[in-house]
């Protein structure tokens, strides 16, 4: 009789928390980000209302009335009665009177000019820069270059300078600095030629690396199986090194190996081949290196899984086959490989998923080069969302890249679960039923 078991739940809780934090939350955030125009300039947590000079271009194209546009473009600082009254209230009447005598009715485009006008005061000097700046603001007639925290405050300010309601709606949209929901990312993604190239690169990368991983892992497992246990352990340890080396160090060693002054170029130099960078000279070079770098890491996992699976084969079967006169190849072909069917399927599916999203070794080695020849989908997502010399990171568009991977990953997982007949694997053993 199934019943709620608090202890069991308690044991599971850490795993659930980890799954929620490191899997569910990122997936949900990716979906959410992918349908926004979020970038460095929009911020993540929301926005304000700000009309700046560069927004005016958009305003002009958006169909506001000419009066509104002029009001925005030409407004500035005006020394009028209302402003002078505010000055009298904030400071004193004498200051207001002196300013009126000097500049009454004057209009200034820039705040700096207004401040200069305030500097002209002689009898009532405003000595502190900060005070002078605050007082200059009392004469402002424009909503330009002011940041308003809420739409209501912005609309109030627009009312204050006499912008009609119809134009206000347009301006509110133009002035918002935060992110908005959009499907543009997806449209852009499917309209870019580069997307198709990255998709193709990803297919090449996953297929070839996977082939190498499984093939080489299998080769290592079978070949070490026939060695003496001590020797086998030594070889397996050596081939396990790529996985336990820190990636940065591992890739650095590959760089030393393939540089045009590196090991490989020196050796081939003796054979009369002109030295070249074997990692980045051509797209083919780059692919070979990328696949080997990833392949050796992946092969070690396959090797371990396959080795243990081979050990589980009853040795009597192998002895019997030898009695029947089977050679090594026939043993591999007819006994070992059929028994490895499930480990091979598992490794293939597991590694497909992990390769789809892995890009760290490519980032460290070729960084997608030469000329984006090895830029895979996940790397493009990283470059878009988190790497930009000019500073405006495209979080939303980068998430759109990542979302495609999430969708493919989930679809593939479901397919694999069905393929492996997961239900059957987790059914209760008959013996207890």
């Amino acid at each position: 009789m199934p019943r709620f078991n608090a202890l069991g739940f308690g044991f599971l809780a850490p795993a659930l928390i980890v799954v929620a934090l490191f899997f569910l939350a990122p997936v949900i955030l990716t979906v959410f980000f992918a349908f926004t125009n979020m970038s460095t300039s929009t911020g993540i947590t929301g926005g304000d209302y700000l009309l700046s000079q560069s927004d005016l271009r958009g305003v002009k194209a958006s169909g506001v009335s000419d009066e509104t546009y002029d009001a925005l473009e030409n407004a500035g600082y005006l020394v009028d009665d209302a402003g002078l009254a505010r000055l009298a209230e904030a400071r004193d009447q004498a200051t207001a009177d002196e300013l009126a005598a000097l500049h009454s009715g004057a209009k200034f485009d820039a705040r700096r000019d207004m401040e200069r006008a305030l500097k002209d005061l002689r009898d009532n000097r405003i000595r502190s820069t900060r005070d002078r700046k605050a007082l200059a603001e009392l004469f402002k007639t424009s909503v330009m270059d002011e940041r308003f925290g809420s739409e209501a405050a912005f609309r109030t300010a627009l009312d204050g300078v006499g912008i009609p309601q119809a134009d206000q709606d347009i301006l509110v949209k133009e002035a918002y600095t935060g992110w908005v929901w959009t499907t543009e990312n997806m449209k852009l993604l499917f309209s870019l030629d580069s997307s198709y190239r990255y998709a193709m690169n990803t297919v090449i990368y996953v297929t070839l690396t996977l082939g190498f991983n499984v093939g080489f892992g299998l080769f290592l497992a079978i070949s070490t199986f026939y060695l003496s246990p001590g020797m086998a352990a030594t070889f397996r340890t050596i081939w396990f090194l790529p996985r336990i080396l820190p990636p940065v160090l591992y890739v650095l060693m590959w760089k030393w190996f393939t540089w045009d002054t590196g090991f490989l170029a020196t050796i081939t130099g003796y054979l009369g081949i002109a030295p070249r960078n074997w990692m980045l000279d051509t797209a083919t070079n780059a692919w070979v290196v990328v696949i080997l770098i990833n392949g050796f890491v992946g092969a070690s996992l396959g090797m371990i899984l396959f080795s243990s699976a081979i050990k589980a084969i009853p040795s009597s079967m192998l002895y019997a086959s030898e009695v029947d006169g089977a050679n090594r190849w026939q043993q591999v072909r007819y006994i070992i490989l059929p028994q490895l069917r499930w480990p091979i399927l598992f490794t293939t599916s597991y590694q497909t998923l992990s390769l789809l999203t892995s890009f760290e070794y490519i980032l460290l080695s070729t960084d997608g080069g030469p000329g984006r020849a090895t830029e895979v989908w996940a790397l493009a997502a990283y470059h878009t969302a988190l790497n930009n010399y000019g500073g405006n990171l495209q979080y939303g568009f980068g998430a759109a890249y990542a979302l495609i991977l999430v969708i493919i990953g989930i679809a593939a997982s479901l397919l694999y679960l069905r393929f492996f007949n997961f239900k059957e694997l987790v059914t209760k053993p008959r013996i207890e039923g």
Partner: protein
Amino acid sequence: MTVSKFKGAFAALMLSAAAVPALAEDVNIVVWAGGSNDADAYRITAIELAADMLEREAAIEGRELNITVEGKRDFGGWEEFKQGVTLAAEAGTAPNIVVTSHLDIAPWSQAGYIVPTEDYLDFDAWPLNDIYPNLLEIAAYNGIQWGIPQDAESRPFFFWKDTMRGIGYSDADIAALPAKIEAGEYTLQNVLEDAKKAVEMGLVEEGYGFYPRPSNGPDYAQFYQSFGGVLQDPETGKLVLDKAAMEAFYQFFADAVDAGITRKNHLGTDWGQWYSEVANGKAATWHGGTWHYARYTGKEGNEDFFGTIEFGLIPAGNDNGRANTITHPLVYLVTDQQNDDHEDIAAQLVKIASEPRMNSLHAIQSAHLGISKQQSNIEIYSNDRWASEATERLLGTANAQPNNLDYGAFSEAMFKGLEAAWTGVKSPADAVTELESELTAKLGDNLIVK
């Protein structure tokens, strides 16, 4: 503090000004400097010195002000620094002052991470009124003065004198090169020819005739300008893709590879290796930055810079273009904080750190150029041959990359196209075609294609 809060904060300000509290005020000012190594230590130290000055000023006025400056410059790289600043700003824990590329002004001001320095500082008063106007312009965006230039630099073209002598230049010819470049008489085509000679005569190894910067950076926009490219339309503020100039620029690098004077796989060369090679004559020609002087003569051990290296503008590429150089000043920016008084103190510190004498410490130690006119009257600056010659020869014609929200995307795509043409993955024409479709899709209305 933002402009809109001025009116609201006004009354409180007036009150506090009227009754100056005699309480001690402890302020912690955090400064983060991106892209800074040991030679750039004065980006932070100058703020510490300024804090001392501001404390003394406050003491004389009868206020006790204690400023603690916490500096940090050990970031993994520009990306890590920029991510750090933006995430901290989102979390409300941004450092008070950041030293960063002027290109960050557009996105960070739009996002509200930074506040205009003009909210706190009088640019008509000393020392800000002495800063070169074109540098101030680079630290402004949308007509607002967001930052203060922290240093200036520019990106010259270098020649190794011995190699130039080897291919037949006399000392007088070499000395005349900078002027010939500026006049457009010595172009990038001449660079190709001379570099090829140097390789063919065995003076430098193959691939070392012309040895460019190994990673993306503002430098490559210079070559686009050399062929007549314009980055931003001055009328509309839109970015400009000049297809002919872009293709000619890509073609130049493809030609350099074909001629064997530049390595096909040059991009991605280790910076350490690169510095050591160019500083010691392994390359015939290359391009870099004015701050390289410190590295060549310091860590790389070139003891006779002026005897071994000649420098000038990046030569023109063809008749459409011009000899040019890009200056990419770092700027001091003040971030948005809960407490406006801390923003004010941060702005005051940045102002004091921009005094000619203070800035000269950084300029000379890091081999950057000064930011203000009076620095030529500061002996440590005027006595430095590199600073004065480089200022004179380069800074006058220097322009900057535009502060524009889409410039990052533009610059990344331009570099990727260059990389494709350079490494032979695509022809220059195909690379430009792809660049056009990508930029049109991504930038839309903010791009002019011609």
